[in-house]
């Protein structure tokens, strides 16, 4: 079996694990025990699924992209509409699940890191709903690029802590959130926003977000009578991709394609594509592919999309790459902007810049597909939050 990982120590093959300072081990073990007890608990699952239905608005539709399909004139293109979720992205699935864990564990204080701000908004949202004290760590560079989301978090009652250390982006926000957790270990629950970090996080985040993939199994059957030929998702840390891939890992005839951010181009070194151009290393508590130099120092990243601007990736993706079960490609900022406009004009959908990476791979993929095939793109989030960035990138006067 390929979908029964991680093992008891939190490894997917050689990737994953718990590489953390000693103080955190207690909290990780506590979380692992709690999750083990609750994941098959009927009341817990009923509450999770009720929240997904009534608060998030699930299931998200599987939508036939008619004009995009006609444009490429090969396989049928279907869109899994995570952009229609409450708060505008797939990120809410994980936070709804983890806040329930926090509630069952009796934690009163919630912390999270955020890059694009979507996970910060999703965390602030669920914390507000339960009246919990919420602190979001965000790199100052991202605070600038995603000011609308910063304001949303504040509206929701969260305190946003600007992080100036290092490259002042997602990885530094994660460092700072971990430092907060080490300091406030007993009353604080850390909601990690991707399938990254130490065990059990990559497993927990995947499991909560796998609702996307499970819905897709039924929806594919209903919409075109079988499973898709290919599933495409963007990969930063990799939670939206892992969520939609996971139930399909054991179906060998479904191709899984993750699209990383090639930034200014893989060959320039200025990108955020560790699976395409990284080596195995340890960052933020897990072993995984990593952008690093020959001394083991983590390299800076570059991407127009704050949500993908991260030098590491979830350990399960590293394992899927090595066993060749999933394929990981990368598209450049320029290709992404082209796709961003195409999806707006042809489908009336404003995708997040992260999501536009998945669409940008169509130019390469579609010419090799046939008319009787079906592909699914995970529309991981909507792009309202990116309008300021797009205006700036394209030097538009509003």
């Amino acid at each position, binding site marked *: 079996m390929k979908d029964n990982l991680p093992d008891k120590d939190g490894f997917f093959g050689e990737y994953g694990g*718990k*590489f*953390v*300072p*000693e*103080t955190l*081990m*207690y*909290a990780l*073990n506590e979380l692992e025990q709690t999750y083990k007890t609750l994941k098959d608990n009927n009341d817990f699952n009923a509450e999770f699924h009720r929240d997904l239905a009534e608060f998030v608005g699930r299931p998200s539709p599987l939508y036939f992209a008619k004009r995009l399909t006609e444009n490429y004139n090969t396989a049928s293109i279907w869109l899994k509409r995570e952009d229609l979720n409450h708060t505008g992205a797939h990120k809410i699935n994980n936070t709804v699940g983890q806040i329930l864990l926090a509630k069952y564990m009796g934690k009163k204080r919630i912390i999270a890191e955020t890059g694009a701000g979507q996970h910060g908004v999703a965390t602030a949202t669920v914390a507000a709903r339960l009246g919990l004290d919420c602190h979001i760590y965000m790199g100052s560079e991202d605070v600038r690029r995603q000011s609308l989301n910063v304001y949303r978090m504040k509206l929701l009652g969260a305190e946003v802590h600007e992080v100036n*250390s*290092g490259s002042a982006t997602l*990885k*530094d926000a994660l*460092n700072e959130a*971990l*430092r907060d957790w*080490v*300091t*406030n*270990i*007993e009353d604080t629950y850390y909601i990690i926003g991707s399938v990254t970090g130490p065990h059990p996080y990559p497993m927990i985040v995947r499991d909560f977000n796998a609702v996307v993939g499970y819905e897709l199994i039924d929806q594919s059957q209903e919409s075109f009578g079988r499973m898709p030929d290919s599933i495409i998702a963007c990969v930063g840390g990799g939670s939206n991709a892992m969520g939609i891939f996971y139930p399909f890992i054991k179906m060998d005839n479904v191709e899984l394609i993750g699209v990383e951010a090639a930034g200014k181009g893989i060959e320039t070194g200025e990108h955020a594509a560790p699976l395409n151009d990284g080596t195995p*290393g*340890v*960052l*933020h*508590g897990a072993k995984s592919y*990593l952008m*690093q130099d*020959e*001394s*083991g*120092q*983590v390299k800076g990243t570059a991407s127009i999309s704050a949500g993908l601007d991260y030098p590491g990736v979830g350990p399960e993706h590293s394992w899927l790459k090595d066993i060749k079960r999933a394929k990981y490609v990368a598209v450049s900022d320029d290709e992404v902007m082209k796709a961003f406009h195409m999806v707006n004009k042809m489908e009336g959908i404003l995708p997040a810049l992260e999501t536009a990476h998945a669409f940008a791979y169509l130019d390469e993929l579609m010419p090799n597909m046939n008319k009787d095939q079906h592909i699914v793109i995970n529309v991981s989030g909507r792009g309202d939050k990116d309008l300021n960035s797009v205006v700036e990138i394209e030097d538009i006067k509003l």
Partner: protein
Amino acid sequence: MKRIEKKLKELSQDNQKAFVGYIVAGDPDLETSLQLMHLSVDSGVDILEIGVPFTDPIAEGPTIQQAHDRSLENETNLQKIIDLICKFREKDTNTPIILMGYINNFLMYKDLINRSHELGVDGVLVVDIPGELSLEDYGIDNQDLDIISLVSPTTSKERVKEIVKNSTGFIYYVTLRGVTGSSNLDGNEIEQNIKYIKSISSIPVMAGFGIKNSDDAKLLSSFSDGIVIGSSIVELIYKNSENKDFHEVSDYISNMKDAIR
């Protein structure tokens, strides 16, 4: 006898506690680090803990983080740090040296680390590898190197048992919940936990994190085999790195050493 064991034995025969002093290699530069290593020993440090800078040091507070960043601007790496230690050994073959850092840097220099004992290193402390795991499984395997592990206030008794099994040299007891350089020491809790470690093992226990002044040092040394001081020394080095007059560092170390006598 290994250098750490020998030093701790000598101190204990004289009824003295150990002073472990931490500096970041390459802050402000490697040449000055060499000078600071000798100065620390001359002022009262018994064991040198040499910080290996990492881009993402998640256990460090702002003071040591910034020292890591400054060092990395000079392109410090483990090879250069080992060269520094070789130079130090030309004049000092008695003071034990421990490399303290993060697993990702050590993994990149596995072969060098495995040879590092013959080059003058006595122990390694990898901050982000759980103590019950064996470094051998990650390719770091040299019986001559002591493996120093951390135990924290949140470590369960069962885990302490596993951790002491895999540790040699000494146990580094993290005295608070937090990053390096924090405050709020709870003397009572620290005493209880160190007593527990000593009840199940004969390995020496050093107490560190959050020691700022001579009162802290005195208190913690009363129930441990010695103390570790990092952030305060690093801060004083930074303050004086412009004119490179490190009298203040020297005075601070002597005061702390006096406090634990």
